[in-house]
């Protein structure tokens, strides 16, 4: 315990090393973003300069007009938003009821049904995209909003039930009991007492729904065909054509559709982390 007031020279070195490692990690994370951002702000000629440079010689917002804000891309983003809203309504309604049934109600075959439900969390999307595409063709719902919303809702529901059940388990049961004793019907009690208390859980669940659909490529690709139904990520993918990629507008669209999510994440980290980990990490 010697010399506690003045840091030892080796402590200084440790501190410097500590920040250097963190800065290196920050650089690793930021470099792909910054290169994309830089490209999105360059003129077409400058993008094709054979000596790459990080700072654009003059800032050109043209790529944002031709990429991010083009009629086509705005439609893709609008489609994604509509799918998010549709899936929010369907999946949260179904999941919050089922989660309450899991946590508090008894019904026949519950153990088996819950086992089946949790086992679906282990089914990777890639294992079912091809038959799901065939199914949607057979049911004549291929390339419709209905198919997209139903598929995303189903993919999300098991995780959402898991997440919301955790929130219901943490509610004090006495509240519900005393409502029943006071003569409230069990069904009404769910809507009047339980549902309002689940607001934090529903917020975390909403973040998961939003992020899943905004970021997903595979399901959207499998279930849609025409531009008028395509979602954001499939739209980005469609910029990559055999004729070659126009990197300026593509990076404008890429950065422009990703940055708002990253900023939202910065302000709502707790919710994002709760949602993304299915409630496993409280954030």
């Amino acid at each position, binding site marked *: 315990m010697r010399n506690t007031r003045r840091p030892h020279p080796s402590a200084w070195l440790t501190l410097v090393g500590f920040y250097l490692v963190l800065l290196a*990690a*920050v650089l*690793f*994370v930021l470099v*792909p*973003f910054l*290169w994309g951002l830089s490209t999105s702000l360059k003129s077409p000629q400058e993008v*094709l*300069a*054979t000596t*790459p440079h990080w700072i654009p010689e003059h800032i050109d917002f043209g790529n944002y007009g031709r990429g991010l804000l083009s009629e086509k891309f705005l439609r893709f983003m609008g489609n994604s938003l509509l799918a998010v809203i549709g899936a929010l309504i369907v999946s949260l309604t*179904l999941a919050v*009821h*089922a989660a309450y*049934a899991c946590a508090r*109600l008894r*019904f026949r075959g519950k153990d088996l*049904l819950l086992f*089946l*439900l949790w086992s679906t969390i282990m*089914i*990777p*999307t*890639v*294992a*079912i*995209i*091809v*038959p*799901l*595409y*065939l199914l949607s063709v057979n049911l004549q719902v291929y390339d419709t909003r209905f198919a997209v919303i*139903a598929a995303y*809702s*189903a*993919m999300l*529901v*098991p995780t959402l039930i898991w997440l919301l059940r955790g929130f219901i388990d943490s509610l004090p049961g006495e509240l519900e009991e005393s409502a029943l004793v006071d003569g409230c019907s*069990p*069904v009404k009690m*769910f809507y009047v007492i339980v549902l309002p208390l689940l607001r934090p859980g529903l917020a975390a669940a909403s973040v998961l729904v939003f*992020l899943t659909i*905004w*970021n997903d490529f*595979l399901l959207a690709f499998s279930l849609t065909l025409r531009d008028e139904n395509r979602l954001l990520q499939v739209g980005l993918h469609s910029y*990559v054509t055999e004729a070659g990629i126009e*990197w300026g507008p593509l*990076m404008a669209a*890429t950065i422009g559709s*990703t940055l708002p*999510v*990253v900023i939202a*994440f*910065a302000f709502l*980290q707790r919710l994002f*982390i709760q949602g993304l*980990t299915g409630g*496993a*990490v*409280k954030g």
Partner: protein
Amino acid sequence: MNTAMTQAPGSTMSQPTRSRRGSQALRLLQGYAFFYPAFLLVAAVLFVPLFHAIWQSVHAADYMEIGRFVGLANFVNLLMHDGGLRDIGLSIVFVGGSVLLATPLGVGLAVLLNRPMRWRAFFRTVLVAPWVVSQLVTGLLWLWLYDDRLGPLQAMMQSLGIRALITDPDWAMASLILTNVWHSYPLVMVFTLAALQTVPSEVIEAATIDGASAWRRFWRITLPLIRNTLKVAVVLTTLHTFNTVTTILIMTGGGPAGATEVLALRVFKEGFQFFRMEVAATAAVLILLLNIAFSLAFVRVLKSDHA
């Protein structure tokens, strides 16, 4: 209700029992009404295609229709004659490389971030950010960064004598792994950070006073305490990486010369590019079996640890 019952014992005994039975029936009905809509949707969208894939995997395909029963011939064909084993091998390289890099990176950064410091919120936010970026965007950003003609890494590549990264058969897999590490280490970091909150600071302080170095404190005290959370993170990363299609599809499409054609990508290509539905289904069933096998093995490891 309690007071009512103590006031009139015996005489009204049947009254509350009957109403309780009635409300129990209502609760049961509520259970069905609350649970089944969700379950039926999941069954229709997940179980039906899953059974279709399993059914198709043991039948020949007649374009989009299911043909005659062929037993395990599709599996034998895919694994022995159609590059299936090679695809699985590439999946193992991709997963192994990603997990071996992402785990120490995620844990290391979590330990650094767990110390009190300036700008902690900033560092934490930036370092978790790749988690909320889509696989497709991740692939696009890195594809452009790796570009061998217009990308910023070419000076560095030239000095190292590397002609190309993502378009070179020798470097494509390594480049892909680095990209995937960028996308997947935040999950390990977030799980580790959460677990570190549960490590009692007194234990660490006591070890410090006893003269244990930071390195020793980490290996002997911190790591054993966060071990189970870390295992969950590693399993999630493994499965997530094994099932990854989009990043690889956009960056290499399995090339060059099949150098990055992992099993998950094979499903996508057979189903949506070559329309060989029986091969797609067979590869999908293999992926599912490998997912289940890995998860079960993991559960055993967790259980044996607790015993």
